[in-house]
């Protein structure tokens, strides 16, 4: 029963992620203005970067605003950022880094909490308790996204 529910949830989540990811990929592809201006490696790198951004974006969109990390990702990769990125032809995430926010340190936690905060989007302003919760959800979504991309890559490589 529990496994069935988990499977069902994971399946639906996978479907959601897959759909969004593919649509984001196509969208990105359509937005690519200059396919031949860059070198092969550069184009590949750019494309891979775009794909990565598309992956994160689709993942966050699939989750919606329910989670703090998805909100953070969406704000980071907002439509403006996307347009900017497209215009620049490369990732402009660096320019859109979030401002440093004062974190609420929880006593007793080592530098691991800091590391975790850097890993999980939007984890800068969270206390350990919610950080752990967000991390759990983030991990599940990341795992699903990885599976989706893996399947896609496998299909393409066949």
């Amino acid at each position: 029963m529990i496994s069935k529910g988990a499977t069902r949830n994971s399946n639906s989540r996978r479907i959601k992620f897959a759909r969004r990811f593919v649509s984001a990929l196509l969208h990105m592809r359509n937005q690519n203005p200059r396919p031949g201006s860059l070198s092969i490696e550069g184009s590949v790198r750019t494309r891979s970067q775009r794909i990565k951004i598309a992956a994160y974006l689709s993942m966050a969109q699939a989750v919606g605003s329910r989670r703090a990390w998805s909100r953070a990702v969406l704000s980071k990769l907002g439509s403006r950022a996307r347009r900017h990125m497209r215009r620049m032809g490369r990732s402009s995430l660096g320019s859109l880094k979030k401002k440093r926010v004062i974190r609420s340190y929880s006593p007793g936690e080592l530098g691991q909490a800091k590391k975790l905060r850097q890993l999980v989007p939007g984890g800068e302003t969270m206390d350990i308790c919610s950080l752990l919760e967000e991390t759990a959800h983030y991990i599940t979504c990341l795992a699903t996204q990885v599976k989706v991309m893996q399947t896609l890559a496998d299909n393409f490589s066949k």
Partner: protein
Amino acid sequence: MEKESTTPPNWTTSSFGMEIQPNELNCAAADQLPNSFFNPNWDNSVDQSDPFESALSSIVSSPAASNAAAIPGRDCLMIRELIGRLGSICNSGEISPQTYVAGNTTTNNNSTNTSGYNTPLNSPPKLNLSIMDSQIRGSLPINGHQVPFHPTLVPFSADPGFAERAARFSSFGNTNCIGLNETDFPYGLMPGMEYGKMSNASSNQQFKVVGSQMGVQEKNKQEGNVVVKRKFIRLPRPSTPENAELGDSREGSSVSEQIPGGEVSTKVDSDSNARKRKSISRGKAKETPSTPSAKDHKTTVENEESNAKRSRQDEDAGNEKDSAKAKAKADSKAAGDGNQKQNKDNSKPPEPPKDYIHVRARRGQATDSHSLAERVRREKISERMKFLQDLVPGCNKVTGKAVMLDEIINYVQSLQRQVEFLSMKLATVNPRMDCNMEAQLSKDIFQSRGALPPTLYPLDSVMRSIPYGYQPQQMQALHGGIANETENRFPVNSLAALSRNNPSGQLPPMDGYGEAVPQVSAPWEDDLQSVVQMGFGQNQQQSFHGSGAAAQMKVEL
């Protein structure tokens, strides 16, 4: 005594069988044991009326009136059951066996309950039902009438501790019967004494005879409790007698506190078992029961183990659930634990306002609100860490927060690296990520995944019939439409249903999505009309042509 032992069994087995669904065997067993247990106690007690009165006073004075208020409706029956059980166990000679028989003969639960009332009033020394005695006796002749017993119920219901205990007993009787050994009689069958004893490791000063048995039962109960799902959050384990009403008493050494004085006794909680509880009686639960219960479970078990050796036995035994027990304890522990009592008093003040999660301080630990909040927070964090432990593969053996955090960080980093690697792979594997992507996706998906739901096959054929070259334009338009459409309109539900092998194969067409169709080129739509005829919704067509291919692919994942 013999009379009691002989008469009750018949009555109890029948009545209990009707009242509760405990195993007959347990009831009978419980029946026998308590009698033996109670007899010595009763002998010890000076007078029948005294225990009743003292217990009654303790019951009446039990503070958790609010709890009782919240419980009575549902606990009336349980109270009756409890009383019945108690009565059966401690049948006194006051009530003629005939009343029992009369009550027994009636198959009506009410009647049995009423007869049950009779017995406990008279016999159990712990139960101070002197007040109710007259009431019940007056209503004795009326069997099967619930109304006459209502007044008797009132004093009981007025005692929140009793109500809760009754509830616990009944729930325990219902739930623990299976978990307990045959030899272990359900808690319900054993009035307060058993409950308190159970919590105690085994030393029940008052009931030497029972003590040893109790200890055994307690251990069994503990194991049983581990399996039992509590009906009441406050009742996670036998050894964790908490008083829902006594939510305010968050004291490590609660048990001892309760013992002194009858009033205290009503606070049956075994404060030694610190645990988080939601005051159900107050109806305020901030967190889900599962969380505290899970935590309580662990903490309680730990507490029990740690406190087993302490002098809980003294206080714990009686107070836990029964006022009568508490009373007995009070008697036995006349000296009482002054410090414990003080602790209880100290714990009382910081009772949090309603809507808060009531946390009970563990025995021997600080009781100020700060440390309590700190403990709550720590438990929250540990709970989340455990959840994460399940998520991260290979972390079952890892213990400790630091190591766990390292593992989590490594896992997140590895996942992110995987995403990056896969995106690179996707970028290289399919450099022509343009026209034929959708087509290839659909083709690959349909070819690689043979386990497509039957409903998808017709669509598959339709898709293949459509010229691939035709698709890209439509794809772009489609995706433009898709992109324009809000994600909410995405037929997630439809695909999800599809993934579940929707037998009908028909998905509810989403009008919102349908509106996007006109934006797509018409001929593409016309081609898909055949698909519609196959029973697929319009949105499906679009989704299939769009990322539907991927979605279908995911269906098989």
